[in-house]
């Protein structure tokens, strides 16, 4: 019933991610981690070419490069310019490779064709509906996972017997690849929305639980002791110290795992779906429409970027104290 048609859901990003989930969610780390799995192969390719170009341009750039000091911050406007520059460079390399005829159109569409067929998709083939379905699935599955993972994660972080009870199983379960469950889930839940939500739930829930438990468990002991000497009881310590203290880190965890949920939903839609961005991509595969596939991928990237920015903005608003002195 289930044939592995189309690009296989890559297990590699999952493995990479699994490594840094164990580490505390540092700010810079979370940022890198988000981008790496998605953009690993294309960016490293063009990064090499970029290096070659600047080296050829002369010694002034090279000297400036030498003047970089470790950990020295970048001015905000320069930071944005640099970030945009790489996008531009990326598209330039892509355009050069495709328009220059280095790569056959069958394998890789050029940027203009991609934009044109993207417009066709949106204007004539109701692609907006697919986008809407995908967003709905991601949010639905993610919200359910978060709603259940939050209380369990907090309970595990706060109470060590609860952690001892659940932690080994959750550690095991989070390494089960969500995509491997798809055949089973189709058997159990059909190919409807329940199955899509279930894939995202499995992908997000166990990771969320563990990371939230670690964040809560890392609360400074002296703050807990101070709360006790101020008259807190055990539940008060959980409510008024552990949870508010871990809240910004939990918000960061949610932001990161939401990013992963995006990869799960596409995988779920590649197999047995009648709508969604992933479904459009599978359809396009049959037609060798690489322009549409690329457009779909870029849309996913853009939505991911937007939700990430919104999340960051929200976190900054919600937890101004966590931003101080950073």
């Amino acid at each position, binding site marked *: 019933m289930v044939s592995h048609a189309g690009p296989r859901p890559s297990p590699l990003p999952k493995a990479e991610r699994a490594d840094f989930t164990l580490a505390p969610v540092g700010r810079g780390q979370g940022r890198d981690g988000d981008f790496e799995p998605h953009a690993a192969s294309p960016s490293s390719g063009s990064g090499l070419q970029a290096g070659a170009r600047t080296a050829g341009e002369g010694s002034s750039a090279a000297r400036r490069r030498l003047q970089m000091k470790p950990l020295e911050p970048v001015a905000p406007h320069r930071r944005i310019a640099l970030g945009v520059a790489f996008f531009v460079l990326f598209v330039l390399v892509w355009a050069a490779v495709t328009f220059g005829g280095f790569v056959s159109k069958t394998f890789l569409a050029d940027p203009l064709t991609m934009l044109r067929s993207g417009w066709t998709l949106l204007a004539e083939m109701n692609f907006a509906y697919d986008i809407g379905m995908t967003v709905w699935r991601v949010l639905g599955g993610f919200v359910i996972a978060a709603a259940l993972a939050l209380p369990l994660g907090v309970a595990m972080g706060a109470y060590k017997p609860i952690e001892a009870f659940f932690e080994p199983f959750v550690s095991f379960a989070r390494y089960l690849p969500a995509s491997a469950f798809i055949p089973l889930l189709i058997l159990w839940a059909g190919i409807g929305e329940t199955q899509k939500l279930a894939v995202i739930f499995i992908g997000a829930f166990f990771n969320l639980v563990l990371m939230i438990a670690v964040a809560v468990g890392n609360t400074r002991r002296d703050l807990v002791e101070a*709360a006790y*000497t*101020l*008259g807190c009881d055990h539940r008060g310590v959980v409510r008024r110290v552990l949870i508010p*203290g871990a809240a910004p880190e939990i918000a960061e965890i949610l932001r990161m795992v939401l990013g992963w949920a995006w990869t799960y939903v596409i995988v779920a839609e590649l197999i047995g779906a009648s709508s969604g961005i992933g479904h459009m991509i599978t359809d396009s595969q049959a037609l060798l429409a690489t322009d549409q596939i690329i457009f779909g991928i870029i849309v996913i990237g853009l939505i991911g970027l937007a939700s990430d920015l919104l999340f960051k903005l929200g976190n900054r608003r919600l937890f101004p*104290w966590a931003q*101080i002195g950073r």
Partner: protein
Amino acid sequence: MSAPILSIRGVSRRFTSAHGDTLALEATDLDVAENDFITILGPSGCGKSTLLRIVAGLDRPSAGEVQLDGRRIEEPGADRGMVFQSYTLFPWLTVRDNVCFGLRERGLARAEQLDVAQAFIGKVGLTGFEQHYPKQLSGGMQQRTALARALANQPRMLLMDEPFGALDHQTRELMQELLLGIWEAERKTVLFVTHDIDEAVFMANRVVVMSARPGRIKLDRPVPLGYPRHYSVKTSPPFAALKAELMEQVRAEVLAAQQAVVA
């Protein structure tokens, strides 16, 4: 001396680890009377902090017991306010909300909380900083807030575990004067752990010296200086005499502690 409000009876503490047992605190007796300002002085690792933590209820004695107003201490409580050496303000709360923390736990109405908090923020000289977060404050200001937070709770006793230990010398002296002024006005009972002899003598009406590990009380001296105390007493002859005696005692303990490490 009036009847003790705090009595420590035969309290000892033994830590058990993979490397074997360590006796951190030998059976210790100490009585603290109402309005006492007692400083506990000793070399590091002598168990003075352990003793204070047992009084706070944050640690359990291996033997013996501590009674506050005749009731055995089993766990931490709002009746023993504590100021720690590390900065323990809640970073997600402003100065005002940190000071309100215990009041809110007691279920006071918000308006009442703010009144009390404002008064204590004023007493520690932080008026105007109510809306600041701890990370925006210097170490000294954080410890003042911690003091206000502990005092606002109206504890029976104030326990202080080297609260000024991380501050620079000048800030530390100002903090001592501030604390002394508040104590003279509020007449709290204070148990204050330090390894700074000047600090111990300047504020206390009684100085207790502890021996090197295993800790026990070696010396218990009243301070022959009246209140209110001006910082100039630090250069007075009675101050110097007591300081000289304590210095000898503490020095002997530090040497003993070092020899114990070598041997």
